[in-house]
């Protein structure tokens, strides 16, 4: 549902204030302690942020895509680790249930995910299956009214906090391709399911990824997402497809934040008797960053509006994710350059952003995978 102008502006204003007053001041602390404080998570719950994309009838806010990306532009104005707290409930963890869940699955999980009482993770990647997700090896073999699940999932965001997993596993081992895969909605606490230690990562400290290990885990047959086996790969691709604009908007928010930091620094720092912002070579970097961030914002809004209007936007969403994630990498790189040595020193926070944004080109489809998606659509005559 699209919000009316006044309500939307008021909500965006609230998110903006929350980011500025509560999140920005503790960026360094979150990075050092590798944890987002519980009180902040509590405030995110109260604001309704966990439920951005969950329909109103299941307790969420049911935002239109345009409204959702507008919120993401705001949430992006701080360390992306904060966004990750709500990321899986808003995106990959919940959307399978929203789009393909049976009514009782929706009723069981969506209200808890919308309120943030439960956290959902998305278990697709495996040690041997990343970009080629259709080659995944985890099996779920039907036995009476259960499935027995075996396999390891890798780099699963928020797995250590999750109460529920959207799991992709092979129900038909004969079929080695996409058609043998089914999706499940699995309570995290079942016997036979364990979660590994959080990985040490390059950036986004405070957000965690872990292995999820299934060893003869017996899950009720009713956990099958939807009603049919063999749909899991298709479902997961649609979930990822839907999340691309969200990630792209977060990238754009981060870029805008970095540009503000750059402008401030360029006006303060003097060398050769002038503010460095007076040097045209610095100005060129500022202008390039601003232009690219503006382009990203414009294309994301255009795609979001088209989607809200009912048009298919798979290819456009891939364009947005591809461009925005690469763009924020360039903007962060220029930010380090504009800050000079200070850009490389932790106290200024710029090197942290530089590391934080690197992931955006990798997860939910690497840049190469986005290129493939875009080119395939073009060659099929869809673009």
């Amino acid at each position: 549902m699209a919000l009316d102008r006044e309500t939307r502006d008021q909500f965006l204003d609230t998110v903006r204030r929350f980011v500025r007053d509560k999140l920005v001041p503790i960026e360094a602390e979150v990075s050092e302690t590798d944890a987002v404080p519980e009180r902040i998570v509590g405030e995110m719950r109260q604001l309704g942020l966990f439920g951005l994309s969950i329909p109103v009838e299941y307790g969420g806010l049911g935002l239109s895509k345009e409204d959702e990306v507008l919120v993401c532009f705001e949430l992006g104005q701080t360390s992306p680790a904060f966004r990750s707290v709500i990321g899986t409930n808003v995106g990959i963890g919940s959307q399978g249930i929203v789009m393909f869940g049976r009514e009782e699955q929706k009723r069981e999980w969506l209200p808890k995910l919308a309120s943030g009482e439960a956290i959902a993770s998305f278990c697709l990647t495996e040690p041997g299956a990343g970009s080629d997700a259709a080659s995944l090896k985890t099996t779920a073999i039907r036995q009476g009214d259960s499935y027995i699940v075996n396999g390891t999932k890798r780099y699963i965001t928020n797995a250590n906090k999750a109460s529920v997993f959207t799991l992709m596993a092979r129900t038909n081992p004969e079929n080695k391709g996409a058609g043998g895969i089914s999706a499940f909605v699995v309570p995290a606490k079942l016997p036979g399911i364990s979660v590994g230690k959080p990985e040490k990562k390059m950036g986004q400290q405070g957000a965690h990824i872990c292995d999820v290990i299934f060893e003869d885990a017996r899950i009720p047959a009713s956990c099958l997402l939807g009603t049919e086996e063999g749909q899991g790969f298709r479902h997961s691709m649609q979930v990822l497809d839907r999340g691309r604009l969200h990630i792209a908007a977060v990238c754009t928010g981060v870029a805008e934040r970095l540009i503000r930091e750059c402008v401030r620094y360029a006006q303060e720092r003097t060398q050769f008797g002038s503010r460095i912002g007076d040097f045209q070579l610095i100005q060129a970097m500022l202008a390039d960053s601003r232009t690219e961030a503006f382009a990203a914002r414009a294309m994301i809004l255009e795609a979001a509006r088209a989607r809200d209007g009912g048009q298919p936007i798979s290819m456009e969403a891939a364009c947005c994710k591809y461009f925005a994630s690469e763009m924020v990498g360039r903007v962060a790189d220029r930010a380090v350059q504009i800050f000079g040595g200070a850009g490389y020193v932790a106290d200024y926070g710029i090197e942290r952003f530089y590391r934080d944004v690197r992931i955006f080109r990798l997860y939910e489809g690497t840049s190469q995978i986005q290129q493939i998606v875009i080119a395939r659509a073009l060659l099929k005559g869809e673009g």
Partner: protein
Amino acid sequence: MKVLVPIKRVVDYNVKIRVKPDQTGVDLANVKMSMNPFDEIGIEEAVRLKEKGTATEIVAVSIGPQAAQETIRTALAMGADRGILVKVDHDVEPLAVAKILKGIAQAENPNLIILGKQAIDDDCNQTGQMLAALLGWAQGTFASKVVLEGEHAHVTREVDGGLQTGKLKLPAIVTTDLRLNEPRYASLPNIMKAKKKPIDEKTPADYGVDATPRLKTLKVTEPPKRKGGIKVKTVQELVDKLKNEAGVI
């Protein structure tokens, strides 16, 4: 128990304000406006009283232009039950505000009126006190703690050198200081619900008040730019400079 909370729409506290070139006032074109932070604390305190079951109804009042309706909506989203907008398109001075509020108090019969100690635009710090005088009610200004007990409010005030706690007979006026509470953020569901809450529109004339300004602003200027400081070598030098150059001791 009914609580009335007057709220003012002011330039957002994060905005770096600029004086108009003709020095008649502050440039408000395209400037972000929001609720006076002390009034936000007032709304929060009222909402907490309601959550505790002490207050039953919270009425938010704003005196200002049509756009002040947005400020009322924010209060409604934070938890106020209904709003009253008294429409005035020019600046309203504290005495006129107090007179209008007196009229509203007489119509609404609240048990408690919580105001901000001052508005961050003109920093007058007068309205609460004037209203208490006009109504003949007890007042507890600069409150850092408010406890309601039966017919009384125990108000802890921040005064020079410490805290002073007074016992006020209700109905009473309380003005908020910064440390009274930390206001909540309105959630989107509550922002949506707030759209359905009623806002009455009134004019000063409805309360028999002539809100025409009595004061004339001669000139508004920016504060002088701060000059760089200096380092002194000894205490004697410091004392000497404070005495002979700064003239402050």
